[in-house]
């Protein structure tokens, strides 16, 4: 059994001068700028004789911009210290594992450095993703402000479309790791009974890659933005100025980060489970992470490849996506959605996992239909590879195959239905505690239900003819992603936050946050279904006059979403900065492994892994007709 933690001596704090020198964020930023200019100059030098075509915009060409980004990112990562280990390995030093004594260090300094402790990386992820989440949300507010009027009034069309693209890219790119980054990195090792991820340096790398991606994306505003939306359809994007290079660099970096994150988590789950932690005893959240990682490892490389093709079209003048030179615009659509559809399940499945993981805790019952839940998530993951052409129902590509894609798309509702069945089964006859995380889980159930049902309209081709590319589909994916991912993201913050930070959050503010968000969310995106049905296309800066009333309603509701987010921010600032009330070790009376650790969590997590029972959810009073418990297996080594 777990022994209690003994007090540990804190390492002595080094003077500021010493801390500024060496591998840290400051060095990284300096090297990033240096790297950018080196890449930029090399780009300027190589383009001229060998490559026949380059964009003639004064002051840059696309090769310069791409090499600049490459140099900048390499410089940044080197400055953080990521190059040290590869160089050591090249010189023949044996493989070793990084130490992580910095966990015990007081203050915030440890979060601004390369850290390989899974707990520190998780908090880094949470803060970093949080910042971009709020910037993306701010973009949404600006978009809604523009749509208060049916004509162009605040932003010009260039700026408006750039905002739309930035909002979409930031949310789809940065938030993809929104649950896996902060929460899977934290709880998966603990849940399966190890102290680290399989590749701790890789774990840190995924975070810093993601952050550099975000910065690369924001630099687009210095190059004129990009007017293509987050899908970046060719050949429109090929017409774009260097602002689109930022999009390419951003998504390529996000893609690398995602692939490596998925790979790392998958290897950890496969190889590092504690003795006795068989596959059928894994908590359902670990299964959700596993299913997500399968998608990440397989689908994301296609995104990187398709972006690479686009980048080659822009630099070395290939013609993958240019009709007229042998390319095809539809090649991009196919390849992009072959990644893009699994991508939306990469966003959704961790949400399923969180809901199913939290429900037993707050209903005081075992998870109902554990195997069904797993089958649901794996089923969604598998099916998501066979549905991508439903994004192209009216495009005229392979139109004869539409009945097949209609069937495969509607079949996705079967495994998704499993998740709902498990939710209902677990709630049934439970002792439901409506805490803040539980409220967010229930919010997920409500929102995702409507998200899923509107998805059936979009998957039915005759109905899709009207709803495709309209505000209806926009409302649909906001119901599934914002109502699904973001609600569970907050559920996870309120649930695991006290364990991760060691501090208590205000329950009262949390409830305000939930109710305001829940009502404002539905009041924002509900009417968008109607707007889509009434014929408003997506990504427009103008719309018919008769739609103004609903649009104004939506915009005002959207501002209430912003207010609810401010309440959340205030909750975080108040709890983490001002009150700093230590959290209880197990405020939810959870029986899950991570809650058995003391709070604050010691650097080593645990000394000995507890005995693993036959059931990951040992809640509830035994009932007579209970049968089907797995046989108990011996304890930990």
């Amino acid at each position: 059994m777990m022994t209690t933690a003994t007090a540990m001596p804190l390492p002595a704090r080094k003077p500021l001068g010493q801390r500024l020198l060496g591998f840290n964020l400051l060095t990284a930023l300096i090297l990033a700028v240096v790297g950018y200019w080196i890449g930029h100059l090399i780009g300027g030098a190589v383009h001229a004789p060998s490559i026949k075509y380059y964009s003639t915009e004064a002051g840059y060409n696309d090769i310069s911009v791409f090499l600049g980004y490459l140099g900048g990112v390499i410089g940044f990562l080197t400055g953080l210290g990521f190059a040290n280990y590869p160089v050591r390995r090249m010189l023949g030093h044996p493989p070793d594992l990084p130490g992580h004594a910095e966990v015990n260090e007081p203050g915030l300094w440890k979060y601004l450095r390369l850290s390989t402790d899974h707990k520190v990386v998780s908090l880094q992820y949470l803060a970093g993703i949080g910042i971009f989440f709020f910037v993306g949300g701010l973009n949404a507010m600006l978009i809604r402000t523009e749509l208060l009027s049916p004509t162009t009034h605040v932003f010009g069309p260039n700026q408006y479309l750039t905002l739309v693209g930035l909002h979409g890219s930031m949310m789809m790119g940065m938030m993809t790791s929104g649950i896996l980054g902060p929460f899977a990195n934290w709880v998966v090792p603990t849940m399966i009974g190890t102290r680290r991820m399989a590749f701790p340096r890789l774990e840190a790398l995924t975070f810093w890659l993601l952050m550099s991606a975000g910065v690369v994306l924001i630099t687009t505003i210095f190059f004129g933005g990009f007017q293509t939306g987050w899908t970046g359809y060719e050949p429109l994007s090929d017409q774009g100025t260097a602002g689109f290079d930022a999009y390419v660099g951003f998504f390529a970096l996000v893609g690398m980060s995602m692939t490596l994150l998925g790979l790392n988590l998958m290897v950890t789950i496969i190889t590092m489970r504690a003795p006795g932690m068989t596959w059928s005893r894994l908590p359902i959240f670990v299964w959700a992470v596993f299913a997500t990682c399968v998608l990440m490892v397989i689908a994301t490389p296609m995104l990187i490849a398709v972006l690479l093709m686009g980048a080659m079209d822009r630099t070395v003048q290939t013609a993958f996506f240019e009709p007229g030179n042998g390319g095809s615009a539809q090649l991009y659509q196919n390849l992009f959605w072959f990644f893009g559809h699994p991508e939306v399940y990469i966003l959704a499945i961790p949400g399923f996992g969180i809901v199913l993981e939290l429900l037993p805790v707050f209903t005081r019952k075992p998870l109902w239909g554990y195997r069904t839940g797993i089958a649901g998530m794996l089923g969604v993951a598998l099916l998501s590879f066979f549905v991508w052409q439903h994004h192209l129902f009216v495009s005229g590509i392979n139109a004869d195959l539409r009945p097949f894609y209609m069937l495969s798309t509607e079949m996705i509702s079967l495994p998704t239905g499993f998740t709902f069945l498990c939710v209902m089964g677990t709630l049934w006859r439970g002792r439901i505690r409506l805490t803040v995380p539980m409220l967010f889980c229930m919010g997920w159930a409500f929102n995702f239900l409507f998200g899923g049902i509107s998805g059936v309209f979009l998957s039915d081709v005759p109905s899709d003819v009207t709803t495709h590319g309209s505000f209806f589909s926009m409302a649909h994916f906001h119901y599934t992603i914002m109502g699904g991912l973001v609600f569970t993201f907050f559920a996870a913050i309120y649930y695991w936050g006290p364990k991760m930070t060691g501090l208590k959050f205000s329950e009262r503010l949390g409830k305000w946050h939930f109710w305001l968000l829940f009502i404002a969310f539905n009041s924002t995106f509900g009417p968008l279904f109607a707007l889509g049905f009434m014929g408003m296309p997506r990504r427009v800066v103008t719309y018919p006059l008769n739609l103004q009333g609903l649009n104004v309603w939506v915009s005002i509701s959207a501002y209430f979403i912003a207010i609810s987010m401010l309440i959340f921010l205030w909750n975080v600032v108040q709890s983490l900065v001002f009150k700093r009330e230590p959290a209880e070790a197990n405020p939810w009376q959870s029986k899950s492994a991570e809650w058995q650790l003391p709070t604050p969590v010691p650097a080593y997590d645990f000394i000995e892994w507890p005995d693993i029972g036959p059931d990951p959810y040992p809640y509830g009073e035994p009932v007579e007709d209970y049968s089907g418990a797995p046989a108990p297996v011996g304890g930990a080594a």
Partner: protein
Amino acid sequence: MSVEGAIGEVRLPPEPVTHRTRPPGVATRLWCGSVTFFFASFLFAYVFLRSLDVHKDWVIGHVEPSGGLGVTVMALMVLSGIIWRIGHFRPVDTIATGVVAIVLGIVAVALQILQYTTIDFGGASGAYASVFIGWTSTYILGAIPGLYWIETQLATLVRARKREVSEADQAVLRAGVEASSFFWAYYAAIGVVTFIFLYVI
């Protein structure tokens, strides 16, 4: 975090050695999956654009990359992959075969670059030219990290000869060698597919 050791004053039980020997192999096999799907995009582009050739612009003008160089590059990669995979099975020969594999790989990269200087078409010369440039260049760029990986294994093995290595550490080293040889052999197989599509069909 260390395999056997302590943080502060707390003694931790040792981490099972499988936590260090199993991940490289599993990760490599998953990584091969990623790489497969990466190149599958180019394969898809090839098949899609070729089948779509409604405007007869699969090939525009004279597009013929040097087949001799193509065969040589492919053969070198395959040879390199096979030799390093064999070398990993025979601990005595590992270092020697590794050196040969690296040399062959470097020659393959150099020949591919040589081929680029001899081609007389650009990316705009039709879809085939685009796929050719995109696929071969990413393939050969991807070979460079693979060569780096083999090099790290060799350097580690050379150093390990000079000192006492525990049985557990020996197993960790072998796991790294196995992983890199699996990847390299797999990568060579992708090279064969690349060759078949770009030169033969």
